[in-house]
Each structure stands twice: as C-alpha cells, then as structure tokens.
C-alpha cells in the first residue's frame, strides 16, 4: 500500500471512533468512555495529518521546519484550551462552549483562506481565473470552481460561526453592551443587504478564484452577518443559538474537508452538523417556537390577555415560615428549576434545601424541562455539580404523570414552562407547548422576584391558582431562608 492509503486508513479509523463516541454518549456511564474514544480518534487523525504528502515533502526537502511549526502551534493551542476547560465554572459552560465553537469556525475559515492563497500562488501552469471563465462559458463547472465553491462556503460559515459565537459569548457573560437584544427596526434591511452582498461575493469567488480579495471580503460580510444575526436574540433563546452555532462549526469543518479533499473532515464535520441541528430542533420544539421565529427575534404576536384580569385579588403571597410549615407535612416534593435558578446560581442552595427535606424523610425529585437553563441539558450539569445524584433528575415526560401524587411542587425561576395556558387555552401564544404539569400538585410554591411575565410575555394563571403560594424573593436568598425556616421547626 502507498503511504497515502495508510493515511486514509487512519482517517477512517478516526471517523469510526467518532461515530462510536457519539453512540456511547447515550448513557452517563458509557459517555466517559465515548469521550476518550473521541479524543483517541482525534489524536489518530492529527497524527496521520503529519504524514500527508505535502508535509513529508517539505520535511524531506527542507528539514523539520514545517513539523516544528505544527508542533509549536499545537502545543500552544492545547495548553490554552486545557487551561480554559479546567478553570471555567460550570455556570459558565454555555459561554465556554460558545467560545470554543467560535475558535473552530475561525480555524476553518483560516484553513480555507490559506489553501486558496497557496493554490493561487503555486498554480502557475494555467491561470485559474481564465480556466474558470472558459468553463463557465462552456456551461460547466471547472475543477477550480468546485474548489472555489467549497472555499467560499467554508469562509462564510466559519466567519458567521466565529462572530456569532463571540456575540453569544458576550451575551451569556452579560457584558453590559450586549445585555439588551438589538431591536433596531432596520435590522431586517441590514441583514438583507448583507445577505445579497454575501451571495454576490460567493459568485465572485467562484468566478475569479485568483482575486483573493473577494474571499476576504466574503469573510468580512460573513463576520457582519454573524453579529447582526445573533445580536437580536434574547437570553432565553440562547439554547437554540448555542446548538445552531455548534452545527455551523461542524458544517464549516465539513466544507473545509471539501476544500482539501479529506473525508475525515467531511465525516466528523457532518456528524457535528447533524448533532447541532437535532438539538436545535429539540430546543425549538420544547419552546414551541419556529427556528425562523427565534432567528429573527420576537414572538410576532402581541397578547390580548390582560395580566390584571388573571391575577386580580387571587394571588396569595406567603412567607418563608408559612411555606416551611407546608413543606413539613409533605411526603413528596418536586423541585422545578428554571432559567432563573441558573442566573441566580442557586444550585447549591437548592441542594441544601433538599438535604433538609430528606432528613425529615421526604422524597425529593427534580423535574427538568428540556429548555431549562442556558444551553441544552445545562440544568442537569448545574444540579450534578451541586452533588445531586442524576437519578433524581427526571425528564418532563417521565415526571409529569407523578404530579397529582406530589404534595408540594417548588418552582424556582421558571415561568412559561409551567404555564397551564399551554394546555388549557388554545388561543394562547404558547398553546401546545410541552409544559411541566406542576399545577396538578397539591400545593405549588413559586419562588419569583415579581409577577413579571416570562419570555413569552403572557400572564401565568398558575400564579393565581387556589393551590399556589407565591414567594416573592431572589431565588438563592429565598431558598436559603426556606432551609433555615425548615431547620428551625
């Protein structure tokens, strides 16, 4: 076998390991092994890349300079990445993942840019611009053009991923400048303009691949698009954005695989692309929103229901002591953590409360809505960090039938995902959205700062229900006070 055949074999082994890694991700025990196999696949692929013909030729002709360059860059990157991964707090996972995504996207853009530069600089035999024009006139695609299409797409998707991820990072870090969603009324026009410019530039890169300026202009418009498409998206929609950017980073890698004709990039990239797309669909479904609705901001419809009609005179507010008394008599308590808990970082406080309850012989479980937190599955990670055994974290479909036998449901920082209107009112904007049926519990305690509406902007009849007690306070402080009150009795 030629050396190229061995390299391809190594790439195939790596691809296989990636697929197995994804497959093992289905269970928390096997997932650890899956992650190791994924890393092993990556190591094999990276090792094989060092034996690619151009690298070996360089080594034989001019000495180890090329491999030293590779080694230095790889070590710098690996050290920075490892330090980041070890230092970042678990509450910051969404930001961290967003940032890493962005780096992957940027890397793909740079690889395609470098490849384009090298190809045009070394392709002395035929003028690619002329070859492309001739083929174009003949009504067919020159090999160059196919290369150029892949290059243009890589540059575009990579740039959108990088800048979109940076904006998502800034939003999740709650940097002041990015706290408010960008709602300039002209933003659709701006996006349209950028989209048209992007399409023209893609065509330009394909027709004149040697005019490298066109590629970098395309990267610029892609960068602007990445920003303008992410800036209008609100905090609660972040899980969708993270999934989507994840998908993009995979697609950018796959496109880069077309540029350098490498199947391992295509396979790994499309696996990631598929994974991101599936998660995006799951998140959208769980929020009862269309992808278009998330991407272009706002729910579109304004709501006719008046909050005063729903709440007037019916909302009962309770103190920590009163709620502690209710909890004392409970056999089964279900805690429903929401976005607010993630923001207040109250996961450890919740664990304390659960400990206090369990000491009294009460069963405590957690009901996790698919979009709770700031990225898919984020709430599970936060609660696991607070040493809550994952067997107690129950998924929505699993725990919903048990609410009628639940004595107390404690809702912390969740709103729309427990709004019974989704079930009862077919005219509600969230009608049909899958929710946690906490209203069926004997008593519902809602910990919330105020009666302000959730992301859907509609009042929640749960707050005015006969079996609901409102506890108006900051999530973390409220839970700590509850625990103290419970321990006093």
């Amino acid at each position, binding site marked *: 076998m030629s050396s190229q055949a061995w390299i391809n074999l190594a790439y195939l082994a790596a691809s296989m390991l990636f697929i197995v890694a994804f497959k093992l991700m289905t269970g928390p025990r096997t997932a650890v092994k*899956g992650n190791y196999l994924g890393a092993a696949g990556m190591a094999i692929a990276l090792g094989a890349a060092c034996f690619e013909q151009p690298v070996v030729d360089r080594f034989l002709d001019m000495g180890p300079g090329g491999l030293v360059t590779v080694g230095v860059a790889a070590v710098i990157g690996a050290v920075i*990445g490892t330090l980041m*991964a070890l230092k970042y707090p678990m509450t910051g996972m969404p930001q961290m993942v967003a940032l*890493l995504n962005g780096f*992957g996207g940027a890397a793909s853009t740079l690889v395609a840019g470098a490849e384009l530069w090298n190809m045009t600089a070394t392709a002395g035999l035929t003028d690619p611009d002329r070859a492309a024009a001739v083929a174009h006139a003949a009504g067919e695609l020159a090999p160059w053009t196919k290369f150029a299409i892949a290059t243009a797409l890589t540059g575009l998707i990579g740039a959108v991923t990088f800048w979109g991820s940076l904006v998502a990072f800034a939003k999740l870090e709650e940097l002041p400048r990015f706290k408010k969603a960008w709602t300039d009324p002209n933003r659709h026009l701006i996006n349209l303009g950028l989209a048209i410019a992007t399409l023209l530039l893609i065509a330009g890169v394909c027709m004149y691949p040697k005019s490298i300026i066109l590629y970098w202009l395309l990267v610029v418009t892609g960068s602007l698009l990445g920003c303008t498409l992410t800036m209008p998206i609100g905090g609660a929609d972040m899980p969708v954005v993270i999934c989507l950017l994840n998908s993009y980073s995979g697609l950018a890698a796959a496109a*880069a*695989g077309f540029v350098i004709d490498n199947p391992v*990039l295509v396979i790994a990239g499309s696996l990631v692309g598929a994974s991101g797309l599936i998660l995006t669909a799951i998140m959208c479904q769980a929020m009862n929103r269309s992808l278009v609705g998330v991407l272009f901001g706002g729910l579109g419809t304004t709501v006719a229901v008046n909050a005063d009609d729903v709440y007037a005179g019916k909302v009962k507010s309770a103190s920590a002591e009163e709620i502690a008394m209710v909890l004392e008599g409970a056999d089964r308590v279900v805690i429903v953590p929401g976005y607010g808990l993630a923001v207040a970082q109250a996961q450890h406080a919740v664990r304390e409360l659960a400990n206090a309850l369990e000491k009294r012989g009460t069963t405590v479980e957690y009901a996790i809505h698919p979009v709770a937190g700031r990225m898919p*599955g*984020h709430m599970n990670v936060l609660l696991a960090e607070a040493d809550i055994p994952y067997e107690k974290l129950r998924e929505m479909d699993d725990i919903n039938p048990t609410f009628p036998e639940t004595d107390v449901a404690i809702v912390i920082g969740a709103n729309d995902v427990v709004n019974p209107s989704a079930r009862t009112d077919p005219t509600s904007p969230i009608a049909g959205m899958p929710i946690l049926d906490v209203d069926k519990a004997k008593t519902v305690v809602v910990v919330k700062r105020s009666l302000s509406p959730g992301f859907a902007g509609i009042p929640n009849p749960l707050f005015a229900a006969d079996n609901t007690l409102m506890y108006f306070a900051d999530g973390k402080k409220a839970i700590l006070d509850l625990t103290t009150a419970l321990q006093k009795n």
Partner: protein
Amino acid sequence: MTTPLLVALFAAAATAPEDAATTFIRLLTVFLLAMWVGFEVITKVPQRLHTPLTSGSNAISGITAVGAIVVAGAMATRFGTALGFLALILAMINVAGGFVVTHRMLEMFQPKKK
C-alpha cells in the same frame, strides 16, 4: 438500521484514483451519509446528556486542525503558513478545551465514591 448505513458510509469514503468531479460527488455522498448516521445516533441521546453532547461534538468539530496541520506543515507560502499556524492554534484550543470540559462534566454525573 445504522449498520448498513455505516457500511455505505465507509465504502463511499474509500478512495480510488479519480478526477475532480468524481471526488466532489464522492465527498458529497460521504457528507450526506455521515449526516444521516449523525441523525440516527444522536436522536438517542437523553436530554440530561445534551450539554456534554454539545461540548463533545464541539471538540470533534476541531477536526479542521487536520487541515491546519497540512497547510502549516507544508509551508508552501509564507502567508499561507502564517494562516495555517493561527488556524492550528485556534483548532487545538477547540479540541483540547472541548474534550477536557466534556470529561469534567461527565465526571460529575458519576456516582460519588465514598
């Protein structure tokens, strides 16, 4: 379900000498089949593992480092090499950071040893 799919995927990925158009079609086939495999496998991941899945797949998207190694290692042009060098740093941050952070998260899901 996935087994014949995998066979098809790897058959498509295996190369024989060919012209540019064939390469393009072959890679397109690989792309579509791999997307399909991805859909098949990932729909089975439970919700509670979605964050590690996201960060793990994120690490795998750093595979673009392979491209960066070829570009940086070949040193064909000075500018191209500089881009490849930068690309490799970024891709390796993605790879190392992704795998390490996924491992950190998955460790938390393990039963605590007393």
